[in-house]
């Protein structure tokens, strides 16, 4: 038989190993060597804190008493985890983005950072968890007692439990309150928990293998035994089975310690992907040998042995002390890991949601900046841990050994499951309100206490036997196990049904009846839409100064971290030194950062206190309302873009047509120009050949021939001059010869110049008198060139017996416009677009000479002068408008 001292030594060595592992992990975490600590395996193993001593020992006991029912406790979590993509992932994402510190914080944060809600959930969690901690103490002392029952010197169970409670409190205080930021991972604790998870799995598997292959004769015999020994009355697929599965699924989300390891200690969503199959696998392995152990225990151990301790007593009965010791360590691990994590989770809740708000209220009268929030928080967290364990111990002392404790696991499950409606609906339903959540939780909690928790004391606490029999105040519809006279045989199914049903009913009804506050609305949007949100953009407008904020930050997150935070922010704002500006965005970040330490409600209250306001800004309200507007705006933008695209396509098509036409013109022009150049060249060549070879040419002929040669050369020169002139103008290198000149004189000069080339005898030119009053600073020669061209064209193409040309004036503050119109044939619609293009020969003007450069030269000149020339369609004839700036700078018009 293992002596008590050896057992205690084993425990102490194990605890020292745990301490070392935790310390090592903390050390590595501080040096940022986190590769192992960050692995999804550690995360998955830490989730196995779900398997407490209640499951480690109790599953076998449950199998021995109730058959296969115990499976339900593991199948619920399995279903939740394989559906991780839809629920747990959202929960973890919200936990990370909102810097959630506990389940109470999550609920409070979702419903407008309400501290009242946080307090209610915290109390609920404490009431639900304390008996659970007592249960762990009980199973630990029971398992100690197995080894010490024949030892007279061994301490009593009360002393053992006290020592255990002390040890656990010490460990939790040392490793659980190292960082103030509850949102950061507790690397040390988590690594130790992961190690404990491995130990309990190995322990249970070893006992199982030992039982199946060494005590019994292999699986066949074990199964035959099981068939014979285990009860079949309470089986699977019954209402109780469904209830248990549902309850355990709810527990894996709502239990404070599960929330702690799944959501708060998670640092990468992809770890959840691994846990989605690895954690069910872990549970699967934990269950594998439960039935064989139970069946064998019933077979070989004397009648009346406690089936809860079969895991220990079978190896002991077979004389296998090593296996028994391993099994003991497994149970020890299960109990301690649960207590440690639960204590951390609860102490965070108590200190953030109860102690700190009370303290804040107390010091509000004094200058709050002078106190150190950090030390207050750390101290309150440590005291809470000791307090919670003390509470568990007291509970154990009062009820220990009674059967009441054995069923407390499921009772605790249902207690914390009361937050499930508020939590799960809060993630998906935007209209859930604070009032609804509060009402639902309160109603559910009351019914839970009345129908399940208080009756579990068997009439010894508040509810008397009389009330149990006849209902409160003798009203039979209020009987705790048959509410409203509806008889559901199983009290657990009864309590689950009524508490959650009425909880949900109150929650939904009141949510629909009340209107959420703006802040609630805002948080609801952020929670339900966590995957769609890019980042926080709702901002409280700032009133506070950076100094105040810095002081506050130092108090909450510590001197170094606050300094680092502010420095980084200042750098982001482009300030090399000094404090950053208190922009809204900065304040949001800061509040988040604080929330990681003190919870959302307190952080919000503190920021509100320092900035002196608590209302939600207009921007925030707009942001809430904006959601629909954004969608609409987006579709409107799309529509606009498609219209723009259609417009562009149309323009492109037009440009393409123009290009095709222009290229055609160019081809035409090239052949034209070759032709034009070829004709004078031919005549020059032939006449000069005659002059050269024919010696007997008379004087008159000589004069005629040489005059032809002269004319033709002049024509050649003119064509070449035009081309040169145009390319010169186009290149923009023209030097303008600016001078002040009277416009009337310019126009008269132009008319005179035109009349030298054309017969003007019957042409009527009506020049407006106003031109003589206008003086311009411009390049007169170039401008005259434009007028000559236009007037000559008007005469040249006019086919009327009496051509009329009108030249009128229009004036704006900056521009003078000369309007030159005639009564000629005009310009056909198709040609209007190209008349100013180079080399254009109009389809209608075939007879006239020229190579189609005149108007494009005019356009280029006007561009160089800073004005323009345009064609205005009119009923009769053609109208050109020449727009000249009153002052021309000698600038490059391009």
């Amino acid at each position, binding site marked *: 038989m293992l002596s008590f001292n050896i057992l205690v030594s084993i425990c102490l060595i194990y605890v020292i190993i745990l301490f070392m592992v935790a310390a090592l992990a903390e050390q590595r975490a501080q040096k940022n060597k986190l590769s192992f600590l960050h692995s999804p395996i550690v995360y998955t193993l830490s989730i196995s804190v779900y398997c407490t001593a209640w499951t480690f020992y109790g599953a076998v006991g449950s199998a021995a008493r109730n058959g*296969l029912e115990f499976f339900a406790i593991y199948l619920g979590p399995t279903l939740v985890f394989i559906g991780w993509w839809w629920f747990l992932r959202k929960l973890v994402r919200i936990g990370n983005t909102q810097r959630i510190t506990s389940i109470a914080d999550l609920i409070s944060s979702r419903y407008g950072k309400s501290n009242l809600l946080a307090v209610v959930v915290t109390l609920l969690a404490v009431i639900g968890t304390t008996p659970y901690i007592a249960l762990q103490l009980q199973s630990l002392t029971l398992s100690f007692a197995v080894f010490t029952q024949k030892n007279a010197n061994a301490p009593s169970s009360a002393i053992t439990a006290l020592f255990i409670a002390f040890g656990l409190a010490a460990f939790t205080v040392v490793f659980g309150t190292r960082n103030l930021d509850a949102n950061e991972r507790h690397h040390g604790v988590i690594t130790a928990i992961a190690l404990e998870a491995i130990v309990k799995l190995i322990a249970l598997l070893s006992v199982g293998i030992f039982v199946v292959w060494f005590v019994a004769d292999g699986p066949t015999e074990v199964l035959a035994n099981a068939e014979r020994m285990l009860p079949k009355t309470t089986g699977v697929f019954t209402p109780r*089975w469904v209830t248990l599965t549902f309850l355990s699924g709810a527990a894996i989300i709502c239990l404070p310690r599960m929330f702690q390891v799944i959501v708060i200690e998670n640092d990468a969503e992809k770890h959840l992907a691994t846990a989605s*199959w690895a954690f069910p696998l872990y549970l699967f392995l934990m269950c594998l040998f439960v039935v064989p152990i139970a069946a064998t225990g019933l077979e070989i151990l004397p009648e009346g042995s406690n089936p809860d301790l079969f895991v220990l007593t079978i190896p002991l009965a077979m004389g296998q002390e090593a296996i028994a010791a391993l099994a003991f360590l497994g149970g020890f691990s299960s109990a301690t890991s649960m207590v440690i994590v639960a204590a951390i989770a609860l102490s965070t809740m108590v200190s953030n949601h109860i102690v700190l708000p009370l303290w804040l209220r107390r010091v509000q009268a004094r200058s709050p900046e002078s106190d150190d929030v950090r030390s207050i928080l750390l101290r309150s967290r440590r005291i809470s841990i000791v307090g919670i364990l003390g509470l568990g111990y007291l509970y154990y002392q009062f009820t220990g050994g009674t059967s009441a404790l054995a069923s407390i696991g499921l009772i605790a499950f249902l207690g914390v499951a009361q937050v499930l409606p508020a939590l799960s609906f809060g993630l998906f339903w935007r209209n859930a309100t604070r009032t609804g959540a509060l009402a639902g939780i309160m109603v559910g909690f009351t019914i839970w206490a009345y129908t399940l928790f208080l009756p579990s004391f068997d009439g010894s606490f508040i509810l008397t036997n009389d009330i149990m029999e006849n209902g409160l105040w003798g009203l039979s519809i209020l009987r705790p196990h048959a509410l409203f006279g509806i008889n559901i045989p199983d009290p657990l199914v009864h309590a689950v049904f009524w508490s959650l049903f009425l909880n949900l009913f109150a929650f939904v009804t009141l949510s629909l009846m009340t209107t959420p506050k703006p802040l609630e609305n805002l948080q609801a949007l952020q929670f339900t839409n966590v995957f769609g949100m890019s980042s926080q953009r709702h901002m409280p407008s700032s009133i506070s100064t950076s100094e105040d904020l810095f002081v506050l930050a130092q108090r909450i997150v510590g001197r170094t971290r606050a300094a680092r935070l502010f420095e980084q922010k200042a750098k982001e704002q482009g300030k090399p030194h000094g404090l950053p500006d208190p922009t809204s965005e900065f304040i949001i970040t800061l509040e988040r950062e604080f929330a990681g330490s003190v919870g959302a409600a307190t952080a919000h209250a503190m920021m509100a206190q320092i900035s002196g306001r608590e209302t939600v800004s207009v921007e925030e309200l707009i942001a809430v309302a904006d959601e629909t507007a954004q969608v609409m705006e987006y579709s409107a933008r799309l529509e606009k873009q498609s219209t723009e695209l259609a417009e562009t396509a149309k323009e492109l098509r037009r440009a393409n047509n123009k290009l095709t036409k222009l290229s055609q013109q160019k081809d035409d022009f090239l052949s034209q120009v070759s032709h034009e150049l070829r004709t004078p060249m031919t005549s020059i060549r032939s006449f000069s050949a005659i002059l050269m070879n024919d010696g007997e040419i008379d004087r008159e002929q000589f004069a005629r021939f040489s005059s032809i040669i002269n004319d033709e050369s002049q024509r050649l020169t003119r064509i070449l001059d035009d081309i040169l002139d145009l390319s010169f103008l186009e290149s923009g290198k023209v030097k303008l010869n600016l001078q002040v000149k009277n416009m009337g004189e310019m126009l008269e000069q132009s008319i005179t110049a035109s009349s030298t080339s054309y017969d003007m005898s019957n042409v009527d030119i009506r020049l407006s008198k106003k031109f003589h009053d206008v003086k311009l600073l411009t390049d007169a020669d170039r401008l005259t060139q434009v007028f000559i061209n236009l007037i000559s064209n008007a005469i040249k193409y006019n086919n009327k017996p009496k051509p009329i040309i009108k030249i009128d004036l229009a004036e704006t503050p900056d521009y003078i416009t000369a309007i030159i119109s005639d009564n000629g044939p005009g310009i056909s619609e198709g040609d209007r677009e190209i008349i100013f293009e180079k080399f254009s020969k109009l389809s209608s003007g075939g007879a006239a000479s020229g190579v189609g450069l005149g108007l494009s030269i005019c356009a280029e000149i006007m561009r160089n002068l800073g004005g323009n020339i345009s064609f205005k369609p009119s009923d009769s004839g053609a109208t050109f408008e020449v727009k000249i700036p009153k002052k021309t700078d000698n600038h490059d018009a391009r």
Partner: protein
Amino acid sequence: MTEKQSFDAMNKKSRGSRKKRDIALILPIIGIILLLTPVLKSFAVGDEASSLTSVMLIIFGVWAGLIAAAFLLSRALISEIRNK
């Protein structure tokens, strides 16, 4: 042509990830149907005497199947998380 191909590929990819997400929803529903309703009990072989063994084997079988499916699914979905 290449543009159209890349368009098709993109379409296929998004449809693929949508399907994966749908499977993620269907898997727990299948689990609930198989584990919480007596659907499987009707397939249990053997008479009343061996009911405990067969029911236990059914539960373990379904459980193992769900774990395997969750394993495959998580490998498919982990790329979705990385993509974001």
